[in-house]
Structure formats: C-alpha cells, structure tokens
C-alpha cells in the first residue's frame, strides 16, 4: 500500500513537471544537438527579467534560431559553470545576464572562456565595464543607463509634488514627509534610484522656492527602509508600511505624505498597506502619492484606477529585441549593431541603451 502510494506520488510529481515543462521551455533544442544561442539569466524569479525572458523567447523563436535558457539562481559560480558547460556543448552565441554586476574579474573569466572557443558574447541588463568589454572582439552590452530610472522617478516625484503641493502636504506644515523603500544593498540601480529619486525631486522643489522633502523619521540616518532579504519585495514594504502607519498617521499629525519605492513591487506593498488603512481607495479617500519603477502591468492598472501615482517604464520587449538582433548578427557574421532599432541609443561600439519612459496614466 505504502509502496503504491510512493509510486503514485512520484508519478504525480513527474507528470506535473513534465506537463509544465512543455509550455515553459518550448524552444529547447534536441538533447544531442547544442542550441545556437545560450541565454544565462541571473535569476528566474525577477519579475522584470521574466518579462524580458518571454519577449526574448518570442523574438528568438520568430528569428528561427534555437536557444536555451539557464537560471543561475543569483549565484555567480553556478552561472560560470553553466557557461563553461554550454561552451563545451558547442553553442554558437553566449547571451549573459551577469549575476555579479560590474565585477570585472567575472566578466574577464567569461570572456576568456568565450575567446578560447572563439565565441561572441552579448551581455545584457546587469552592467559590465566598458574597458573590459571593449578589449575583446565580438562582444556587446545591451543595458539601460542605470541612473536614468532614478532621475526620471525623481523628476516625476518633484513635478507631481510641486503641482499638488497643498494636497500632498496633509498636515499643512509646509514640508512633505516621505518614505523611501530600497530593494537591496550594494546594487547600483537600487543605489541610484534611492539617491536620485529624492535628490532630483528636491532640486525641482527648491528651485521653485519650496523646502526639500523630509524623511518621515528624522532619526533614521539612512533615509530609506531596506528589504532585509534583498528581494525588492512587496512583503517587505507592506510590513514596513504597516509598522510606519501604526506610529505615523493623521491623528498624530505626522502622516507620511509621499512614498517613493525602488520598484513597482515595493510600491504595490505600500499601496496595499495604505488601502488597508483607509487611503488610496478612490475619490472619497485621501490619496498618498506612491511612485515605483518598472511599469509592471499591475502598477499600470493601479495608476489608472488612481491608487498609485507614477512609475518608470523599462522596456522589456525593446531589451529582448536588441539582444536578439545582436545575437543573430553575430550568428550570421554581420556587424554587431546592423539593423538595430534606431530608437535605442548606441554608445560607442560596445553598448546599446534601451531608454526608459515615465508613466503616470
């Protein structure tokens, strides 16, 4: 009986896996034959990268090249091993979303391995350094100007607060108190968004003769709250926001008047907390402006219903398209940037920047 149960359980698990696998990895090359393009992802849980991944799957499929996705699960060692294995397997182009962003030694290790097999490499999304990339042939980087999202968010915050100053200033003390949610320590994008999200807003406000934004808790020297798991998660921001609202609220006259988050997920957590406390629920309730980055579908929906104020769009389809174009160019022996969409900003011979755009409904 128990043996039967065990067999059934095992069979169930395998079926579930096999069943799902078809839909998720439809483009796998036959096992005996290496794929043309091997794509190495830093982490399959990342929501933005997941949308890049499915856009890239579509792009590569319609370009008629075989491909395979690898998940490093945030571990550089795993990724380096995966790359070496893929090279040994005989892939033709490496597409790398390097786990340890801006770590030159890692980039060199990857490029040395690729050069030994005479393979082209396309890095994307997570930054690599110019001097390393340009010292190798057949290498390119598709990224974004990582400071741009922070600047755009800061500008959006500044413009919005300036235009609605008296509405935003709930307690009428003339100063806007804000909270900043940071996704992760030691991540360039998180650092830039945390810094410029406030600095640029302050610049706009002070230029118009208003005081700079004030962090809601004057004793917090960091001037941000951090997801302790480094996961940029809505759970973290929700729990922080709940805790903040138990101390800072309208009754006490010290309500947080503005929320700036490093990404939409964290913005969402804050919005959900605010909704539970009777804010941001529609025209008859007070709305605390909440800003995020990424323009996820749910954030766009929240902005359209008025529960969230703004986000910055990082173009997933554009990034996937640029990577595909370069990879196919390498595959066919063309110049790296031949036929690339002119909307993207080329930087020297090594880098393509996919522009961000602001979204506020």
């Amino acid at each position: 009986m128990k043996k039967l149960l065990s067999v059934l359980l095992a069979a169930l698990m395998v079926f579930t896996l096999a069943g799902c696998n078809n839909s998720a990895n439809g483009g796998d090359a036959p096992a005996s034959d290496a794929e043309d393009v091997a794509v190495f992802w830093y982490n399959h849980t990342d929501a933005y990268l997941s949308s890049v991944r499915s856009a890239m799957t579509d792009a590569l499929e319609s370009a008629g090249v075989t491909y395979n996705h690898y998940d490093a699960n945030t571990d550089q060692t795993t990724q380096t091993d995966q790359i070496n294995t893929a090279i040994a397997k005989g892939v033709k182009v490496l597409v790398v979303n390097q786990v340890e962003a801006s770590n030159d030694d890692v980039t060199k290790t990857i490029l040395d391995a690729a050069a030994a097999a005479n393979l082209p490499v396309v890095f994307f999304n997570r930054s690599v350094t110019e001097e390393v990339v340009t010292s190798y042939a057949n290498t390119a980087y598709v990224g974004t100007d990582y400071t741009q999202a922070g600047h755009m968010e800061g500008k959006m915050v500044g413009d919005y607060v300036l235009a609605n100053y008296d509405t935003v200033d709930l307690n009428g003390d003339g100063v806007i108190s804000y909270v900043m949610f940071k996704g992760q320590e030691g991540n360039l994008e998180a650092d830039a968004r945390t810094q410029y999200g406030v600095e640029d807003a302050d610049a706009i406000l002070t230029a118009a003769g208003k005081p700079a934004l004030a962090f809601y808790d004057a004793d917090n020297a960091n001037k941000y709250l951090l997801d302790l798991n480094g996961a940029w998660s809505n759970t973290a921001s929700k729990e922080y926001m709940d805790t903040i609202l138990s101390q800072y609220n309208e009754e006490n006259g010290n309500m947080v008047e503005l929320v700036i988050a490093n990404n939409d997920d964290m913005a969402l957590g804050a919005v959900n907390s605010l909704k539970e406390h009777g804010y941001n629920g529609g025209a008859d309730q007070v709305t605390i402006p909440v800003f995020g980055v990424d323009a996820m579908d749910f954030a766009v929906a929240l902005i359209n219903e008025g529960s969230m104020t703004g986000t910055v769009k990082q173009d997933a389809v554009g990034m996937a398209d640029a990577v595909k174009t370069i990879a196919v160019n390498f595959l066919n022996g063309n110049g790296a940037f031949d036929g690339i969409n002119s909307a993207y900003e080329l930087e020297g011979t090594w880098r393509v920047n996919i522009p961000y755009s602001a979204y506020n409904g």
Partner: protein
Amino acid sequence: MEKKFDKKKILDLLLNNAMYIIIALLVVYVAIKRPKFLGIASIINIISLTASKLPMALGIAGCIVLAGTDISAGKIVGLNACITASLLTTVYKIWPNMTAPFPIPVVLLIVLCVGGLIGLFNGFCVAQFDLHPYIVTLSTQLIIYGIILIYMMLGTNNGMALSGMTEEYKQLITGPLFNIGTVRVPRYVFYALCFVGLMWVIWNKTTFGKNMFAVGSNKVAAEVSGVNVKKTIMMVFTLAGMMYAITGFIDAARVGSANATTGLNYESDAISACVIGGVSFVGGTGKISGVIIGVLLLQVIFAGLNFLSVNANLIYIVKGLIILIACAIDMRKYLTKK
C-alpha cells in the same frame, strides 16, 4: 548555605524565563524612547504581524519536535500563495481560459491538498527511507521552487507578480474583525487564534500529539511501546504542509499580491521563532505557548528596531544573537537534566 541555594534558584528562574524577560526589557526600552510603541495602532500592528506568521511556525514546530526540521516551508507558502492569487483573481493571467474567479472554499481545498500532499511527500521520504528531514526538505524545496517558477510563467503572466484579487477574498482575510477606535483588527488574527487552539488540542489532547512527542524524544522506545512511528512522522509533515498552505492562502491577501519570491526565507524566521520559544532541536520538547512567544519576540524586534530607527544591518545581528542566546539557554536546561 541557604543563601547560596536561593541565589541558584533565582538564577534558574531568570534563565528559564529569559525570553519573557528579554521581551519585557525590549518593550520597556522602546516604549520609553518612543511612547507610541505602546499605542493601540502599534500593538495591533505587532499582533497582526505575529498572527500572520503563526500558522507556519505552528506547522514547522511539529517537525522540530520530531528532532527534524523543514526548510521547504517557505517555498510551500510561496507556491500556495501563488495558486491562491491566480485563482481568486479578477485578472486571469495564469489561466487565461478562466471566466470567473473560483469559489473561495474550492481554492482553500485546493491549497490544503497541495500543501498536504507536499507535506505527505516530505514525511513519506523521511519515514520510509529513514532520511534526515533536512536532506528531504532541502530537495523538495528545490523541486517546489522549480514548480513555482514554471507556474508563474504559465498563461500570459510572464513571471509578473499576481494581484487584482477579488474583494470577497480580501475581505475574508484582511477585512475588519472589529475596530478599536480607528484601528482595524484584521480577520486573520482571529484565524490565527483558531489555529493556535486547534494545534494546542492536537498537541496536548490527542493520541497523535502524544505519539509525536514520543517519537521525537526516542524513536526506538516509541516503536517498542507500540507507536506507529512512520505514520506519526507522515502525519506531522502533512499537518505542517497544510499549515504552510494556510499561511500562503492568508499571505496572498495580506500582502495583496504574490510572486515567485513570496515566502522567501520564511522558514528561517519560523524555525528561529520555534527555537527561541523552546521547541528544542533535541526533539520531544516544546509547547504551543513557546511558539507564540518566539513569533511574538521576532515581531517585537522587527517593529521595535523600526521604531528606534535602528540601522537595518543591525537587525540581522540582533536576531542572530537572540537565537544564539535562546539556544544556549535551551541546551543548558537539557544539560542540567542529564
């Protein structure tokens, strides 16, 4: 002579109640610095945070009583949160063919089955192949992680966070139980209380509960005295799996969305809470009240350090020290028994 004896007694008393004393000291300290820490809003917030983490800790506590552990817990929570969020929603992304959200009882049943089956699978491997639970759950958490990632890519979702849950479901979980002034006590606090009651009865008043402690303190002795050890282990893990499923079911509404990182590292907090509350890794000892104290202490630390505007990096250190102290006190009790 007599005086010395008294000193030892007092010391024992202090050490045995060290966790209560630490909580009290922490609360007093924070309250002096920030009086609002003891305001109604803040107390309700801490109670709500505690309630949201309780079902999971209660489940994992059973595995620890068996002298085991369960590190797949967080991923089981995550999977069930994603399943819940994908079925009780008004935007059909994972299952584009859906035309209406599922009825809530059906979804609850589905997650209980999913959680229970995964738990049963864990328990089965532990009992049948005599593997250490650490190894088994280390493996299953990887398997579940893979399933979550695949699940989140289904339909038109592309790995995005799932939100847009139905109002009915959100109300069921986070709707007001009652209000104290303007402060709302969410319904899940009541559910957590129910689970505390349920688990207390299971642990203390049922044969299964007694068997669990017997197996935890000495497997061979339990076997000899006629306890079905394998069945007990499987039941403990199944029950734990169902508690994680409940946690996921509640968490999706509590947080307002679910994604592939939901549940990340939850198990480490739950295990810490149990250990702090005196559910010993040695096996066979532990109380429901201890689990509650453990969870509460961690949430008091979280909220308290937040009120004190303590640097985030220090929170790790404080947590680590607390766990270490708790374990040291716990082992000391055990050593003196010997």
